[in-house]
């Protein structure tokens, strides 16, 4: 079934391939608690107790990691869909020519 045109499916293909690679990697970096991503875990309140701080940070890191992986999974689905659309489009254009 054809839903997207050739250009849109190509864009989806590139975007989702990029998304899968980057988001899986970012998930890994969150999972190993990369300091560079500390600004992006949404640690707002100031905690005085170091133990509390660490446990809070850890949950946030894991949460972000899973969020990234969820997004990556959706991109895998988009990738499959776009690839299928791309294939359909290339088939129909071949039969035309």
């Amino acid at each position, binding site marked *: 079934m054809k839903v997207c045109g050739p250009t849109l499916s190509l864009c989806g293909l590139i975007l989702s391939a990029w998304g899968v690679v980057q988001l899986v990697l970012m998930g890994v970096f969150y999972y190993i608690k990369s300091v*560079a991503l500390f600004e992006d875990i949404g640690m707002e309140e100031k905690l005085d107790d170091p133990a509390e701080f660490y446990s809070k940070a850890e949950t946030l890191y894991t949460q972000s990691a899973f969020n990234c992986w*969820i997004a990556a999974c959706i991109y895998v689905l988009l990738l499959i869909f776009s690839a299928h659309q791309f294939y359909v489009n290339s088939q129909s254009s071949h039969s035309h020519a």
Partner: protein
Amino acid sequence: MGSLFRSEEMTLCQLFLQSEAAYACVSELGELGLVQFRDLNPDVNAFQRKFVNEVRRCDEMERKLRYLEKEIKKDEIPMLDTGENPEAPQPREMIDLEATFEKLENELREVNQNAEALKRNFLELTELKHILRKTQVFFDEADYGLYYPYSSQMADPSREEEQVTLLGEEGLRAGGQPMKLGFVAGVILRERIPAFERMLWRACRGNVFLRQAEIETPLEDPSNGDEVFKSVFIIFFQGDQLKTRVKKICEGFRATLYPCPEAPADRREMAMGVMTRIEDLNTVLGQTQDHRHRVLVAAAKNIKNWFVKVRKIKAIYHTLNNFNLDVTQKCLIAECWVPVQDLETIQLALRRGTERSGSSVPPILNRMDTFEDPPTYNRTNKFTSAFQVLIDAYGVATYREVNPAPYTIITFPFLFAVMFGDVGHGMIIFLFGLWMVLKEKPLAAKKSTNEIWNIFFGGRYVILLMGAFSMYTGLIYNDMFSKSLNIFGSYWYVDYNVSTIHGNGNLQLDPKSMYVNHPYPFGMDPIWQLADNKIIFLNAYKMKISIIFGVAHMLFGVSLSLWNNQYFQRKTNIYTEFIPQVIFMCFLFMWMCILMFIKWIKYSAHNEDIEVTPYCAPSILITFINMCLFKKGTPLPKCPEWMFPGQGGLQQLFLIIALLCIPWMLLAKPLLIIRGQRKQHMPLTNSSNHHAPGTEPENTDLESQTVALPHKEEEDNNIGEIMIHQGIHTIEYVLGSVSHTASYLRLWALSLAHAQLSEVLWKMVLGNAMKMQGWAGGIAVWIIFAFWAVLTIGILVLMEGLSAFLHTLRLHWVEFQSKFYSGLGYTFQPFSFEVILESAAQNDE
């Protein structure tokens, strides 16, 4: 090789071709594409040249081919493009080609004419068919109402009131018997109906009755193939006068009228006849179409080939038109620019041409001496050509001048990357470039007409290198989509205890106690990403780097001018321009760079002596400004005034020497020229005195020769002009080296802007999604990532990339090339079938 560094050595040649062999020889040269012919009859207009007839015949053939091509495209028949390159056919084959094209064109025209006539016929019949069908309804109504108005009045007085009162009563009174009504039926364009109706009503004072019905299916206009909607109408009226009037109006509205029998039986019979005729016509039309298709398919197989052949013939005759005929009319004389290296190849091609034409007299290729500047010919391949284009866009190199293109291959992507340093963005560009390079052949075969795509594709190797270099500088800056990569582990560590951290908002890491005292192995330490003073630190670093690169780049440009001077034997230029230029640049700006290195090496937090700790490290910019203003430094308490003893004196000496270079550049060359001219004048006057009276004619001959030489005239330029020229040159260099050095700061500025923009994009867009709590965050990340990716491509890669590209281009054109490049040449445009066919193909689309 070696021709990448300088343009090819060219020579002007005279070519004698035997008339019979000329065509074949020129054809061979066209395949070779190494010879630029000069027009030897510039005063003769295009219609008076020798081969104007042949050129005209080629034009005619081209027109026919274009007509064929148009028809083929209309039928959407694929044209076979094998990419083969047939040789230019012999002149006698031209007649065959002409005959073929003539036949094809005539056949096609005839078929088209027939098809059009048939279609017109078909349209008429279809319209008639519709009329018969639609009017049947009207007649059925009329059986009661109109045809016999008297009875209609009886049958249904309320209906058609107008007609009834109009015709019924009076008609009865007049004749006492039913009136005989006439009618016309026809077809008209649907949009004309309202106007038509109004016109009829007004012109006939309401004495006619119009009925109309729409034809649902659109009809095809035979002349242009458009689909049009039409309506059937029928008009009832009384009397001949009205009839002529109605017919006139119909004519005026371009309605087609069809005869419509009055009796129902006749109509039925006619409808049957029309149906059979339509069917017959359909078969004939189908056969005509088939025939046309067959003709076109056969033509489509060869059309590209024919185009190539015809264009080659035309190009050859066009070139032959530029030749001179000698007195005996037996041979053609041509003048051409030829690369010296390829003389052998050209000779071989000429010999092949002679053999092919069966002529016995070999062509003669003579080298000629000339004072004209030869064209600039840089041999390029697919890799270097894009860089050569960048250079040529500024100005084509003067003949045999140093060509900046080979250096640009490295410096261009590098300076671009300094401004565009980001591993992520670099990788996007790199992958795009890599894809274009790997898919080179299929992409090139597509021959896209999209201008932007063609620019990208033409510069694919530039893009590839720019991407690779950007990844490298991105690693140095440790930036990947504004995040740092902690590959080796930071070399800084936090040594504060918990209470200190709790007590203070911002803490600085002291390099003395919290740094392992040797740098991160490659590029920036990733810890800087989290530091508040990151920008301050990076600015200091990037500014210094930009100035160092800039001075190196400019000094390199100046040293290329030495090579130019040596090559062109301009020895005085070396002493009067090159040496003071180098001294000026080195003693001022390279000195500033050296100060930077001294500062980097000498001062360290680990030093015990306070004089070499960061506390006492001077600002290089302030030091440099003080040096130029002959001012003393204002050191902090307990610090020495200079970085090393004797620096003050040394700097003053440097500055004085650099300033002395200005009058040196300004005056030395004009003075030398004046002295040289005085020396020249002396022997000239002497020699004229010594001439014996008998040699007078020779002398005038010599003089007339010298007038012909442009070089001699130049030397007679008056001193004022030389002084002004040298003054401009000097001011340009002195002011230029100041402003150009500052101009290289754009490397820092753009790099800063790029880094900040990508950081803002991350924080404002992707960061927000990442911070989202709970599982809905996954969906948010999915959506916002797409948004972020599009913005990254659009703003950071495309727009920022374009701006960095333009700044790099400027740094090369202005800052670098102004040091050595004059760019006053003109390009070598060889007679080449390849170029001619390509440009013709592009014009087609």
